[in-house]
């Protein structure tokens, strides 16, 4: 799949991969960067998940939005993208943007300055976030790529989606390792959830049935220092 081009060296811990012929850097922090397009994609930020749960009496620490934005700030500083696509479920619920602490709002707006910012609508946040710049879209086609929140049931070449929060598990030497991952078969890519409080679902779960060509499915597992490309045969359910 990968085009045989002279590649620039990806940043430490990142790997080049191909999606429908487009070249992307698969970053261990859970973002995709398309150097030719100067485009950064991030998925399932689930901002204000903490306060969303707090409304129902579960008072988990209110620092998730801050933590998520700090990590986002770091990748944006590294890649300096011209375009940022937030692939849906950017906020944990429709009222999330309105509840956001003013300091976090300012930090987020600061990140948006000087770039095109797209909020792809997700199931948690179908409408545009309140009082925030950026353009809200159902889906977005750029080059041979199609960015949407939920992966389509039928195979779409070049689709980049989120929603499922993929993780993968392997067993080595009698020990089990589970990590968030990018899941891709060369044609389609499903991104890991980026938010600080987001859980994950194994790529072998029934929810992914029919989304990938099994034989070329790879899980790009997020390590502490780098990405680990693990083939389908080594993956375990659970």
């Amino acid at each position: 799949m990968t085009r045989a081009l002279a590649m620039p060296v990806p940043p430490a811990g990142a790997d080049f991969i191909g999606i429908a012929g487009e070249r992307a850097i698969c970053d261990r922090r859970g973002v995709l960067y398309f150097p030719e397009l100067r485009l950064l994609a991030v998925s399932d930020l689930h901002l204000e998940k903490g306060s969303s749960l707090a409304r129902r009496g579960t008072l988990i620490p209110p620092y998730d939005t801050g933590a998520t934005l700090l990590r986002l700030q770091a990748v944006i500083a590294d890649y300096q993208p011209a375009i940022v696509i937030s692939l849906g479920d950017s906020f944990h619920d429709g009222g999330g943007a309105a509840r956001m602490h003013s300091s976090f709002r300012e930090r987020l707006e600061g990140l948006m300055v000087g770039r095109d910012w797209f909020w792809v609508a997700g199931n948690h946040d179908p409408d545009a976030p309140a009082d925030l710049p950026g353009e809200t879209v159902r889906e977005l086609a750029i080059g041979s790529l199609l960015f949407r929140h939920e992966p389509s049931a039928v195979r779409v070449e070049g689709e980049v989606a989120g929603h499922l929060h993929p993780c993968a598990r392997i067993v080595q030497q009698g020990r089990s390792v589970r990590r968030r991952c990018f899941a891709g078969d060369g044609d389609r890519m499903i991104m890991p959830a980026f938010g600080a409080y987001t859980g994950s679902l194994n790529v072998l779960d029934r929810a992914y049935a029919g989304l990938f060509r099994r034989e070329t499915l790879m899980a790009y597992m997020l390590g502490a220092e780098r990405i680990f490309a693990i083939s389908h045969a080594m993956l375990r359910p659970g």
Partner: protein
Amino acid sequence: MTEQPRLAKQNAAVHLPEPFLRWFAEKGWSPRAHQIELLATAQAGQSVLLIAPTGAGKTLAGFLPSLTELAGRPRKKPGQARRGIHTLYISPLKALAVDIERNLGKPVEEIGLPVTIETRTGDTPAHKRQRQKLAPPDILLTTPEQLALLIAAPDARRFFEDLHYVVLDELHSLVTSKRGHLLSLGLARLRSFVPGLQTIGLSATVAEPDELRRWLVSQNPPGGMAELIVVTGGAKPEISILDSEERVPWAGHSARYATPEIYSEIKRHKTTLLFVNTRSQAELLFQELWRVNEDTLPIALHHGSLDVAQRRRVEKAMGENALRAIVATSTLDLGIDWGDVDLVVHVGAPKGASRLAQRIGRANHRMDEPSKAILIPANRFEVLECRAALDANYLGAQDTPPLVNGGLDVLAQHVLGCACGAPFLADTLFEEVRTAAPYASLDRPTFDRVVDFVATGGYALKNYERYARIRLTKDGLWRVSNPRIAQQYRLNVGTIIEVPALNVRYIKAGSKGSASRGGRVLGKIEEAFLETLTHGDTFMFAGKVLRFEGIRENECFVSNALGIDAKVPYYGGGKFPLSTYLAEQVRIMLDDPLRWKKLPEQVADWLRFQADKSVLPKRDDLLIETFPRGNRHYLVAYPFEGRLAHQTLGMLLTRRLDRTGARPLGFVATDYALAIWSLADMGRMFRAKKPSLSELFDQDMLGDDLEAWLAGSWLLKRTFRNCALISGLIEKRHPGQEKSGRQVTVSTDLIYDVLRSHEPDHILLQATRADAATGLLDVSRLAEMLSRIQGRIVHKNLEQISPLAVPIMLEIGKMPVHGEADDTLLMDAATLVEEAMGTK
């Protein structure tokens, strides 16, 4: 002893009402001295602690004050106001409550007492609970969790207004856990409802009875204690250590070498109770025994992971004396009917002298007859430990753990519970909480932070005011903000956290999980173990060798298999560390060659070889050996402080050694020793004092190094999860849905990471660190050891491995390596792919 019965008889006439005396006489019994003494103490208005061995008639003693009082009460006339609960009985086990109902019912019926007795446990149907609220029994038998629920009900004060006594059974086992903390707070609440409330604690022998005496009464004024009655004596148990014909292994825990000898003991006795320390050992021993069970004797298996129905069947068979032997993990796992056990076999070292005494106490119901017990050490160090425990048991030494301060997570749960019951004043509740012994030293700022935590999470970032669970109203009272909070509280009450586990269910071999609905459930196995299995792997469980067929939702499917290399599930937390007392006894024994005569010859020889090749540690010294082996350099230390403290020490020492350039590669810890291996020659480094051993073992390792290591440690994450669940930060259960263990695990780990980086001083992190220090890390014990060995480190730089080092060296590579599953495993997997794909 001879005078006591006569004295008791005289006193009995004074304190026991006539119908009771007649009943005793009809039975041909006479009341025991301690039963009358306890009755007299209670009649004088005092709370009391009764310490007595099994079979001393503790239960009847505990209920005599209630029964005699209830017997003298005028009958209730029709139309008269209802009478509330008179006596509350609390035990750690549901089964025990049920059993007491049966046993107490008998004398009540025979004496003809107008007393109603009922149980209330998690299994009690809702309509019966409702009825109990309207028409309470005189005596209610229940568990700590049910008490917490009762006091969180809006009618609690009225429900308990007639309460006279609280009887607390198995107090020694209750007080050492968070359940005990919650119970102590519940008691404090009951005392505030009924100021004259009397408590009666029933306990096995403990090291510090005064701690329990304080626990039973209000600590306002500070230091108050319940009266104490101690029943000594009972026949001295006949304990021996198996003097095996076989070679005692250097290392390992299976005691497989002794199987034929254990089997012949089973054949020689009527019923044998075999205790082991872990569930894994239970599975192994059971398999081994059946392998040699030529006479197909009825030998059964019993541990806490087995299906309840299966356990009940085994207990029933045991009660009917239909079994010849039972392999069991702990007395608390077992039900109550003991049958005629005439031999206790303890496989593996007992790890504590008190534990040994309590287990052996199970062998015989009649305290006047000696119990018979055999200890089977699984390896050579355990021979030393068994010998030390045996000497201690004869001396009556006690080494139950000291009580720790009450957990703040438990307090948070209680505060919310109190608010669910009735609005509270912070000042009043603070004073009330401090009457509970575990919280006697709680300071006001900490209490206020706990209340703040319950209200809004207690975060520095004040974002959740509008979502507060409890609110301070104008009248100065804290109130629950809405009824849903109370409903959620009731679903999450208690301090017992279950490890994520899956049902193990039979299906036909080779069939796909989805194709068949499956057969019966064998029990539950921890998810962490199942995750390491692949389709087709075999493992031992429920006394069978099983084939892993797959996981579907909350079930693990298995089929029967033949397996020689079957794995044994590893159960976390099932293993007790060596007690401080026993550790010291082992050190003393090593230091005293005269005492080696009592040891089996092969073990004494081993120690003599050690004296010859290296040196034996003096009782207060720390021996450290260094030697090369293969292309590695080894450091072996012998602190004898238990596995948990050694693991912590190992983590900290490897960090330090790494900084000094020793290039450590790994370590392994047992109850007795710690081994670290490295690339650099540590022996030479120590001799050149770069670093010196006293620098390396300096107490300051418990400062920054500990903090730094702890921060990212999985141990702390696991502890945090428990604190988060108990404190009510995260719900164990939500109305209408049960969270699976994994969902909770994932989220608490993420929450931990976020909280630690944004508010490291948050009260829940404080509670987590305090727990870890006494629990999984055993920092307190490590601290004592580091201070004890200052200036007393003995270094032996050897050419080769010493005899004493052999056991721990054999553990290298055998023990499961704990810790975060790290990236190196991912690296291995990724490399395999690269190689296979030819992209490397």
